[in-house]
């Protein structure tokens, strides 16, 4: 029971947090909530399967762009619905063409997907609509955005918890260990991978749509910033991508660190990110949570 009560209490506390912080603090809260959502949604698919998706921003940016294009024509909730639908369709197309192959093909494809979407939208805007940038004027306060993102993040973690206990989660773990065994045990590889990938993509797209009013001005180069994809991956890995709370645990501190770095040392930012990636792969291959468990186990043995 405590397993449920503590997160719920934390969620309530977080919901009241905007009352106690400045506008800048609220901005940080939104950013942290966004990355918790992104990292958790990423891990929903990539955490167990080891299919490393580098395409987070392809979906996030698409969501933001949906909001920018549709917000004047449709009511807010309908735009979110559209964004989710478009994200799902995109993920289904990408998944159907790459997920039945070896993992490395998927990685490569996802590596270039954001750039591809960005080029296509840019080309379309320049040649067809004739407007490259778009403004989002919506009557939504920063608090609203924060609450929506908090809700999406909580929903993502709840969904992950549910999946971990379901047949889907079991199948994903087996696929991560050995696809041949999974298939010969009766698991439909393509379907399982596709379902998880689409679920993850819908959340990523929604996250983009929800945060987009914060940008006010949206253009492809802004919302398809590849750094978002890379940050998401390293956050989830640092915390532990196959744990329920791992991505959230990695996302909050790293978001704050990168926020600080990007204002104080914008030039050395990539170097730091590179060293962090290498450090995590070599020192914490399964994330902080698994590292702590190992330490504890070792202490137990010693005492």
């Amino acid at each position: 029971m405590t397993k449920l009560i503590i997160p719920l209490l934390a969620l309530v506390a977080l919901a009241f947090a905007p009352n106690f912080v400045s506008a800048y603090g609220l901005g940080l809260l939104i950013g942290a909530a966004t990355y918790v959502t992104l990292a958790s949604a990423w891990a929903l698919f990539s955490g167990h399967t080891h299919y490393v998706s580098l395409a987070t921003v392809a979906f996030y940016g698409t969501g933001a762009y949906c909001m920018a294009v549709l917000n004047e024509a449709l009511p807010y909730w309908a735009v979110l619905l559209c964004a989710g639908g478009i994200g799902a369709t995109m993920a289904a197309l990408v998944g159907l063409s790459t997920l039945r192959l070896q993992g490395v093909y998927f990685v490569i494809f996802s590596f270039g997907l954001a750039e591809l979407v960005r080029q296509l939208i840019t080309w379309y805007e320049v040649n067809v609509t004739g407007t490259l940038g778009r403004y989002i004027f919506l009557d939504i306060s920063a608090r609203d955005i924060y609450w929506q993102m908090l809700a999406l993040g909580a929903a993502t973690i709840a969904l992950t918890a549910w999946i971990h206990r379901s047949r889907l989660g079991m199948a994903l773990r087996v696929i991560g260990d050995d696809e041949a065994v999974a298939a010969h045990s009766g698991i439909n590889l393509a379907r399982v991978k596709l379902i998880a990938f689409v679920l993850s993509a819908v959340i990523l797209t929604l996250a983009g749509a929800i945060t987009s009013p914060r940008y006010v001005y949206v253009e492809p180069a802004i919302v398809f910033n590849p750094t978002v994809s890379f940050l998401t991956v390293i956050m989830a890995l640092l915390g532990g991508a196959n744990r329920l709370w791992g991505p959230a645990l990695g996302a909050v501190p790293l978001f704050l660190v990168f926020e600080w770095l990007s204002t104080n040392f914008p030039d050395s930012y990539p170097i730091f990110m590179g060293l962090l990636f290498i450090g995590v792969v070599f020192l914490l291959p399964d994330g902080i949570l698994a590292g702590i468990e190992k330490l504890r186990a070792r202490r137990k043995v010693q005492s």
Partner: protein
Amino acid sequence: MSFLAIEHAVKQFGGLRAVDDVSFSLKRGEIVGLLGPNGSGKTTLINLISGALPASAGTITLNGQQLTGLRRDKIARCGVARTFQLVRILPSLTLIENVKIPAVFGHKAHWGAAAERVAKDALAMVGLSERATMSAGDLTYIDQKRLELARALAAEPELLLLDEWLAGLNPTELEEGIKLISELRDSGLTILMVEHIIDAVRALCPRVVVMNSGKLIADEQTDKALTDPAVVTAYLGEDVDA
């Protein structure tokens, strides 16, 4: 009526015919040894039946249901379970989880307590019950083999394909292994087993089929086959692990 029917199965790898027009069948509850020198196409045939590789030609049916052309997971859900020549376990899962997988996703599709029970029974069968919550990656080679058999059994299969499951066991373990398979046979399971250990084949299989360079060269009683000149010639020059 035959339970497993293999008709004119062919597998072509570029210019090589790894399985060349092979036909034979198994009756329900029968246990048959699949023999042949290394590289004769035995494992490829197992792969064709279990769907790991698509057949280039021919048909394979189980209980009247066509298997050729189906995906691996569909074939598994038709009631075909297998072990692998090079043992494949799921190292990051516990033993009980390893075994639960086919119980959940196999052709009986259990969930919850039922899946748990099937998995526990399968582990008990191979004598791994006490270590159910251990991580499978920490097992010794022999125990990994046992676990793999338990996993195949937890699928509650109609047809069990064993690919050199007895290979690499020491004499005591071999004896236990033979006893285990004979128990399975007595329970009415249909088994096709690739095996090099002739003593084990003699003890378990009344009938064998023999392959050489992709072709079926014998399908007869075990004693007869082992003195069949064609079979003996096929094995000459090869080390017979007997």
